[in-house]
C-alpha cells in the first residue's frame, strides 16, 4: 500500500478541476474523469494506485470502470487505489450483459463491488449498447433493466445509466424506452461533431431531459488524429471538455499522461464558440468516412463480451482475449467461470 502523499495545498478556485452538476441531481463530479480501461494498462498495481492517488490529489472525483476491463484487473487495481478514499470519489462501473439475462447482471454487480472494495456504486451503467437490438434485449422481461432497478432499490447503486459508441440512433432508442436513466455515456470529440454525431443528435436530448451526459473518447480512443497530425491531444481534450457534459472520461495509464490532463483540467476555461468552430473546421476533412472513429464503423472497440453475446467474431489481439487464452481457468466461457466469479 502506498501511503497517501501529504495533503495538497488547498486549491484556489482558479486552479481546481471544475466540478459539474450530475444531471438533475444535487451531486457534483469533476469535469475530468479517469478511464478504467487504461488504468489496467499501468505497469503494475502499485503504479495504478499511485495514478489513482495523484488523480484524487489533482481534483479528479469521477472514476470510470467496467466489469470486463482486463478481466477484472482494472476494477481490482482501482479498488486497491481507492482504499481509504472511497467517500471522496464518485465510482462508476459497467455491467456486460449485452442482451443476456438480468440474473447475470446481478452476479456481475456483486463481483464488481468485491473488486472495487465497496458496498455501493455511485453509478452503474449498462455497457456498450452497440447493436440495433440491444435496447429491446435490455428491456425484455427478465432482462438487465429489471436487475438495474432492483440494485438501485436495494441501495447497491445510487444512479443508473448506459454507454455505447456505435450509433446515435441506438442511444435514442434506449432513451425512448422510458427507463429512468440518470446518466448516458457516449463518444464526444471534434470528429463526432461531423459524423454520425452524438453531439448533434443525443447531447441536446439529454440536456432536455436532465440526464447527465458523460463524454468519452475525447482523443478518439487511441489518439489516431494526433498521430496523423490533424489536431493535438490538448486541442481534442479541450474541445470535448467544452461541450455541455458532466464529465469527460479519458484514459491515463501513465503518470505523465495524468499530469498533462490535470494541467488542462485544472482551472479549465471552455473554448469560445469561435474556437470550437475553428477546431471543427480542422477535423471536417477527415471526419466524413469515420477513419478516426473506428468504434462507429468497425468492431474494433467492441469488447469480447459484446461480441460473444451477439455471436460476432472475437479479436484475438484484444487484451481481454489474450488474457483469457493465457488464463489457467479458461474453460471456454470467457469470464463466467465459477472459480473466477469468486475472485
Amino acid at each position, binding site marked *: 500500500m502506498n501511503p497517501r502523499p501529504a495533503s495538497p495545498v488547498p486549491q484556489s478556485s482558479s486552479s481546481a478541476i471544475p466540478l459539474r452538476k450530475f444531471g438533475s441531481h444535487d451531486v457534483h463530479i469533476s469535469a475530468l474523469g479517469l478511464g478504467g480501461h487504461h488504468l489496467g494498462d499501468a505497469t503494475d498495481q502499485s503504479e495504478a494506485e499511485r495514478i489513482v492517488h495523484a488523480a484524487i490529489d489533482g481534483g479528479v472525483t469521477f472514476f470510470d470502470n467496467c466489469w470486463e476491463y482486463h478481466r477484472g484487473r482494472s476494477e481490482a487495481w482501482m479498488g486497491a487505489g481507492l482504499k481509504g478514499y472511497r467517500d471522496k470519489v464518485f465510482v462508476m462501473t459497467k455491467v456486460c450483459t449485452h442482451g443476456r439475462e438480468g440474473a447475470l447482471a446481478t452476479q456481475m454487480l456483486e463481483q464488481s463491488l468485491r473488486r472495487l472494495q465497496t458496498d455501493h456504486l455511485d453509478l452503474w451503467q449498462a455497457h456498450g449498447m452497440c447493436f440495433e437490438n440491444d435496447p429491446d434485449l435490455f428491456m425484455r422481461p427478465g432482462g438487465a433493466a429489471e436487475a438495474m432497478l432492483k440494485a438501485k432499490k436495494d441501495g447497491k447503486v445510487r444512479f443508473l445509466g448506459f454507454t455505447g459508441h456505435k450509433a446515435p440512433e441506438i442511444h435514442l432508442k434506449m432513451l425512448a424506452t422510458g427507463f429512468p436513466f440518470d446518466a448516458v455515456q457516449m463518444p464526444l470529440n471534434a470528429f463526432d461533431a461531423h459524423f454520425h454525431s452524438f453531439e448533434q443528435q443525443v447531447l441536446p436530448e439529454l440536456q432536455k431531459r436532465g440526464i447527465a451526459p458523460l463524454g468519452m473518447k475525447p482523443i478518439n480512443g487511441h489518439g489516431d488524429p494526433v498521430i496523423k497530425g490533424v489536431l493535438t491531444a490538448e486541442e481534442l481534450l479541450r474541445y470535448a471538455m467544452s461541450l455541455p457534459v458532466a464529465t469527460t472520461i479519458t484514459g491515463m495509464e501513465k503518470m505523465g499522461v495524468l499530469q498533462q490532463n490535470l494541467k488542462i483540467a485544472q482551472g479549465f476555461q471552455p473554448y469560445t464558440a469561435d474556437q470550437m468552430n475553428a477546431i471543427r473546421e480542422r477535423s471536417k476533412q477527415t471526419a466524413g468516412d469515420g477513419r478516426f472513429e473506428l468504434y462507429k464503423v468497425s468492431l474494433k472497440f467492441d469488447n469480447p463480451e459484446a461480441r460473444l453475446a451477439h455471436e460476432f*467474431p472475437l479479436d484475438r489481439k484484444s487484451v481481454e482475449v489474450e488474457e483469457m487464452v493465457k488464463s489457467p481457468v479458461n474453460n471456454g466461457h470467457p469470464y463466467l467461470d465459477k472459480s473466477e466469479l469468486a475472485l
Partner: protein
Amino acid sequence: MAEESGISRRDFVRTAAGTMGAASVHALASAEARPRHATGSGSRAESATSSAPVPMRELGKTGEKVSAIGVGGFHLGSTKDQNEANELVSRALDAGVTFFDNCWDYHDGQSELILGNALKGKREKAFVMTKVCTHGRGKDVAMEQLEESLRRLQTDHLDLWQIHEVIHYNDPDLIFASGGAAEALLAAKQQGKVRFIGFTGHKDPAIHLKMLSHDFPFDTVQMPLNCLDATFRSFETHVLPEATRRGIAVLGMKSLGGSGELIRHGVVTPEEGLRYAMSLPVATTISGMDSLAVLEQNLQIARGFTPMTAAEMAKLRERSRELAADGRFELFKTTKKYDGKVGREQHGYPTAEELPV
C-alpha cells in the same frame, strides 16, 4: 475465430439460450431440421428439369435482358484453375446464364483475366459487367482502370461498368465532386466503351439513397438482398422500391450472407436463401460459384425458376427476424470484413490484417 481461441461456440449457444430468447433458438433448430427440398409449392420440382432455361429478365428500362442469376466474379477467381473456370463459364452459358460479374481489384486482376480467357469466342453470348475501384479518386484513375479491365477481359466494350463499393459515408460527395468518378461513367458511355453504368455497395441503404439523390442516369444499382436484409438496415425496404420506381435495374448480391453465413449457421438452406433473393423484383441475383458443384446447385434452382409466393417470403423473413436483428450474419453491413483493400487504403483505414472486422 471463436473456435480457434478455445471458446466453444456450442457452449456459447447453450449459454445464450436464455439470452436471445427461446424463439431464436427454436428458429435455429427448425432450420436445421428442415428437409433440403421441402419448399412445399411443387411447381419448382415440375419445372426444374435439366433442360429448362434460366429465365431472362428486363434490365431496368435499358431494353436489355439478362439472366435471373449471375456468375460472381470474385468466386470465379477462386476456382482451382483456368480449366475449371472455362468449364464453369461454358456450362453456365449453355444453361442460359448470361450475366457475368467482375471487378478491377478481384484477386488483384486475376478474376478479370480468368473470365476474359473463359469467354474467348463467346463474348457475344455474355453480358459482361465489371467495377471500377476509385474509392474517392477522380475520373483519370477510373479511365485508366477501365482500359486495364478491357484488356484483361479481352473485349472492346463492357455491357455494364459500375463504381465499386460505395460504402463510406462521404463516397457520394467524392464521386460527384468536379472531376470525380461520375464523370468517368458518362465519358466511357459516350465513347462507346461501356453500354450501361451503375454503382454497388454493401454497407448502408442511406449511402445508396444519397447516391440516388444525385439524379444521375444510373442504369443499375447493386446491393445485398437476402431474407435477413429484409428486416435489418434493409436495402430491400429502403432502396429497392426507389430504384424500381425510377426504372433503375436492381442487381442483388450476398443472397447467402456473402460467404454462406446463412447456410453455415443453419438459418436457411441454400435453396431457400437463393430463392428468396431471386423472388424479389431484381434483374439478376449475382451468386458466387467457385466450383462446378455450386454452379449445378444454383442452376437446379434457377432453371425454370418460379418465384416464392408472398406468404412463403413473409414466413422466411419472420423465421430469420431475430437472427437478423443485430447483423451477426450480415457482416458486410456491421463489420469491416467485406471491405476491400483499395477502399481501405484510399479512406485511410487499417488493413484487413490490422482490422479484420
